[in-house]
């Protein structure tokens, strides 16, 4: 539990699970959830580097805080877009949202 690689691999798995969700979920809220997972994976990376490598332990934590802020903003915007889209199309299936189809 005290090796950097363990945390990094965990973070990578979390990130790739999130990625998988983003890629194949058709429910927009499901995609949003997956994005949160990806952000969590990235945050773990920061914290792990902060713990094992960084010269100043406060910096990684601050970055993680910023990531949380961004995540909150992203969630607010994303959810409002999802709501708007739902009102427009009576659906939150991302495959329905293809008006830009060529």
């Amino acid at each position, binding site marked *: 539990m005290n090796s950097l690689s363990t945390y990094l691999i965990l973070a990578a798995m979390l990130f790739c699970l999130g*990625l998988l969700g*983003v*890629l*194949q979920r*058709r429910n927009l809220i499901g995609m949003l959830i997956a994005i949160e997972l990806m952000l969590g994976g990235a945050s773990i990376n920061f914290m792990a580097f902060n713990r094992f490598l960084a010269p100043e332990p406060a910096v990684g934590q601050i970055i993680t805080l910023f990531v949380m802020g961004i995540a909150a903003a992203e969630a607010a915007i994303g959810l409002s877009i999802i709501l708007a889209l739902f009102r427009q199309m009576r659906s939150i299936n*991302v*495959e329905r*949202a*293809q*008006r*830009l*189809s*060529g």
Partner: protein
Amino acid sequence: MMWLFKDPVLAAACTGTWLPFLAMLVILIFTRRNQRLSAGISIASIVTSLICAIYLFTKLFHAGVPVQYEVAWAMTPDLYVPFGYLLDPHSLLMLLIVATIACLVQIYSVGYMAGDPGFSRYYAFQSLFAWAMLTMVIAPGMLQLYIFWELVGLASYLLIGYYYEKYSASQAGKKAFVVTRLGDIGFFLGLIFLMLGYGDLGILNINQAAAGHQIPGPLVTISALLIFCGVIGKSAQFPLLTWLPDAMEGPTPVSALLHSATMVAAGVYMMSRIFPFFAASPDAMAVALAIGTVTMLLASTMAMATYDLKQVWAYSTVSQLGFMVMGLGAGGYFAGVFHLTTHAGFKALLFLCSGMFIHEFHTNDMRVIGQSGGRNLKVPMISMTIGALALSGLFPFSGFFSKEAIMGVLAQHTNKVWLFAGLLGALMTAYYSFRLIFFVALPRKLATVPAEDHGHGHGADHGDEHHGNAYWAMAWPVMFLASVTCVLGFFQAPLEQFLTGGHAAAAAHGAGQEGAGHGMGHYVLLAGAIGCALAGLAWAWVEFGRKRAPQEGFLKKFPLAEILFARRWYLDDFYRKALDTLVYGGLTSLFTRNDRRVIDGAIDGICKLTVGTGRMTSFMQSGMLQYNLLVMVAGIGLVLLFFFI
């Protein structure tokens, strides 16, 4: 501005050249509505230019050394392109000629153009011409000369097409512009060759270098021949000579100033300007000599067949320009320049006289003018006779001296063909000049005269007595030029001294005929030349002058020849044919086909390709967010694998 006053020579040069330009701007911008004011501004500026020219001429007459003010427009260290003023004897003489004739013509035009709706425009263009021509004359470098050479061409175009509502006039303007441009291409190419090969376009430098054999021979020959193309275009030499007769569509004073005395002489002037350069290439000189000869003879024959007053003088201008080129080509620097000087005087005189007739009788046909009482106009009649005598080369008029000078040069040439061509030309010149004089002065009632409405009935009303200011505005310049023509020839020796400089004794011998070694041969030549001229005169007298003369001319017996001459040896038809078949029929249709098929086809093909590709690939734009993302992520993953594993 203080520097201007410190050097009066420079100040005079600047004022003399730029004042007409200012006049043009003022006329075009401010005073177009006020015709009298426009004419006043233009004439005031050209008179000032004339005063400046006289001042420069007298001030620098004994200077001996050329005065040069120049700014180097050096793009690279290997290149020297000067702009500014070069005041050497030759340019001073030409400056004086141009300023004088421009001034006289502008004064004359007050009478000739009176009441014309485009009066202000006319004077603006005259000022433009004066500016361009004066600046061209005193250019120190070939590039400046070329630029103003083209500006002079522009002025010529504008003035030929002055009556632009007349179709033939606008066509003639375009023709003059395009044809001279054809020669100018060669000129410019020659300059480029010279610039690349030698890197210096200063006139004095070129001349010195060529005389000192510092420029390689082939380069001199090639660039001299190319530059000679410019002379061919501008001075209406053999292949490109037909634009000048057409240019007579412009007002007569314009013909007098541009198309006989100064602008067309610019070609000859340019050639004499870099005469040592030309002289360094015997081949180029031989070409010039041949082309000058052909031009002179062709144009003389054309002049024998036309009944249009101005056309006769136009052909004669072409012929005399050919004669000058002959003189230069044969190596007679002074002879060519001197003939240029005297020709400027007497040809302007002839045109201005013709202009008085045309203004009076509203026709160009010499037969109609004669029958309407052309000889009642004493001033132009006498002046025109003086001009014709000078043109024929009869003593004591100016043409005699300059023609003799050229004949002397030709006689020194080993090949006597040129001399006989010159004598033949003198014969024909005298013939056609006096054919015209006799037609006007000694008319017969001829059945063949075309009955033009305004041709008859005018002569009786217009005696010498009741002429207004317009008449005298025209008469004074004519009389001045006539008197100049009478006396100019006697200034040959001082002019020669001035032009060739004291040191060039040998050149003077080559050019003049008073060299000690000629002796007897010289007098034979003199007699031959005068004999030819008198023979031509007598011939004309027999056919047109004497009482009960048929006034038909020997050409009537050779209808084929007459048609040939009248149609200008079918040069125009040849060009038209060549244009039609070669350019329009061949090249243009090829280009059109190329444009339609190849270029349009290629562009259409590209369009179709683009549209087709878009159609084919538009399925990728499925609007499926996740597929796009998927491809992107897979791509990033592959990049990661590629670079880090």
